């Protein structure tokens, strides 16, 4: 059953970008990006460091406004509805350091409730909520850390708390900024698989930046390559289930490695 269908209030979130530019003082992080993201698709963003992946994700999350061009989201939901249905796993995790893991995960559902109910749900959670949080933590392998202070965790543990928060939120648009950077390969694969399963189960749209193009090609329907703020690669899974456009030459070009020069 796909929960995030076009008929659901916040369901089926997709985007149309038309020549979108995001310029910071002295630096254009995205330039003339045109792109259509179908609701329910799973998309990987790859590209060298500084290419604009984080910037694109923040744009989709509504955390940034384009400085040029047009961004439209498909589906007639309000901004608030969309936000409540958007899960964002940030590159720096964006956790509240002094709170317990439990509270940080519970905070994922704040968008659904009004202020009072939301606060109650974070600071005086129901037994059912605590168990749901525990379940989300178990899925990313850190069930034991439920009551630990978040700033005492290792890098990878913090990253998984951020992922658990997004799982707990049950979003229809899931944006992940290098969600597995601090994880070992086996756990990385599992987490990516988890995100894909979640998206498919719910019919959610998933956009993830990853550094490992093999992970991208193996798990995602669509792989978009960014370089210096521009799209230089856009590959969809073919009938055979392969990403034929992800050739070594294309990747060489994307990452722009020219050995030996300075």
């Amino acid at each position, binding site marked *: 059953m796909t929960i995030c269908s076009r008929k659901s209030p916040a369901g089926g979130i997709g985007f149309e970008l038309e020549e979108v530019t995001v310029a910071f003082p002295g630096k254009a992080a995205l330039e003339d990006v045109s792109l259509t993201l179908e609701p329910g698709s799973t998309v990987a963003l790859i590209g060298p460091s500084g290419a604009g992946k984080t910037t694109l994700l923040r744009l989709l999350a509504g955390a940034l406004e384009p400085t040029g061009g047009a961004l439209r989201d498909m589906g007639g939901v309000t901004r608030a509805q969309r936000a409540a249905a958007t899960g964002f796993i940030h590159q720096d995790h964006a956790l509240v350091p002094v709170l*317990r893991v439990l509270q940080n995960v519970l905070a994922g559902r704040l968008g659904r409730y009004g202020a009072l109910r939301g606060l109650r749900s974070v600071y005086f959670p129901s037994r059912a909520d605590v*168990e749901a949080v*525990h*379940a989300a933590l178990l899925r990313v392998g850190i*069930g*034991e850390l*439920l*009551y*630990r*202070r978040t700033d005492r965790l290792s890098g990878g543990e913090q990253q998984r708390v951020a992922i658990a928060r997004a799982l707990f939120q049950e979003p229809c648009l899931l944006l992940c900024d290098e969600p597995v950077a601090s994880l070992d390969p086996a756990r990385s694969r599992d987490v990516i698989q988890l995100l894909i399963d979640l998206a498919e189960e719910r019919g959610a749209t998933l956009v993830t930046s990853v550094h490992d193009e093999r992970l991208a090609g193996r798990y995602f329907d669509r792989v978009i390559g960014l370089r210096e703020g521009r799209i230089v690669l856009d590959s969809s899974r073919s009938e055979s289930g392969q990403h034929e456009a992800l050739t070594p030459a294309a990747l060489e070009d994307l990452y722009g490695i020219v050995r030996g020069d300075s």
Partner: protein
Amino acid sequence: MSAKDVERLRRARERSPFLRWTAAVLAGTALLAWVGGTVDATDLFQSRRADNLVRFLSVDAMPPAVRDAAGAEKLGALWAWARDLVASRYLSAAAATLAVAIVAAILASFAGACLAPLTARSGPGASSRPRRAVSFLARLGCVLCRAVPEYMLAFLLGALLPSAAWACILALAIHNGGILGRLYGETLENADQRAARAWHLAGAGRLVATVGALFPAVLPRFLTYFFYRLETCVRESTVLGMLGFVSLGHWIVQARAAGHYDEMLLAFGMGAIIVLSADLASWIARRAVRDAS
């Protein structure tokens, strides 16, 4: 199954009885203050108090010239009254007050910044034994300096020194030096230590690591505290009117003694203007520093 796990984890969670007791003791003390008879809040709500307030505002605090002036001229009379007082007395008194506060705050800040790396217990290399002893002594010094209220210090120094201005400055500098030593030290302690530790681990001496990696990061906070103490110094030099040097405090005492509450309030206002200006300066300085590279 999960419920059991959750319950086990909940039982094992980190908790601090110390903090719970602190909260309980403080709440209990505050409650006792209000209901134990030491502080009588009900008396504040007698009708007599309201009458007094009305009288104070409409009679005591009303400059005679304004009271006597006809409707439209009241504003002009108020302006003339204030201008004369400011020009003849309060402007120079305010300047002296500000000058005392600035010198005192700078001396205090200098002392505090020297003490801070000593008092901070979590700086790079802080765990060694001699370092802990130094830290303890520095803290003790700070506590002694600031435990005696500046009002009392000024009282004592005023009897010792020939220069009332110096007595005032020293009292403020000693007291505030102790406070800044602690606040600066605490800022260093709470600051993100990773960079300083990285420098120290890379072999930089403690001083270099503190000054180089920590001070730039904490400078805005240091400035916050400096200006906050400057303000405090202005406020305090305003009340130190008993030393016989012509600050705003001097005129406040004179006005109150003569029952000229209008003049007293004007002097209060002058003090408030200096404090507000210090606030503004603080705001500008911190913005400049924070936005600077």
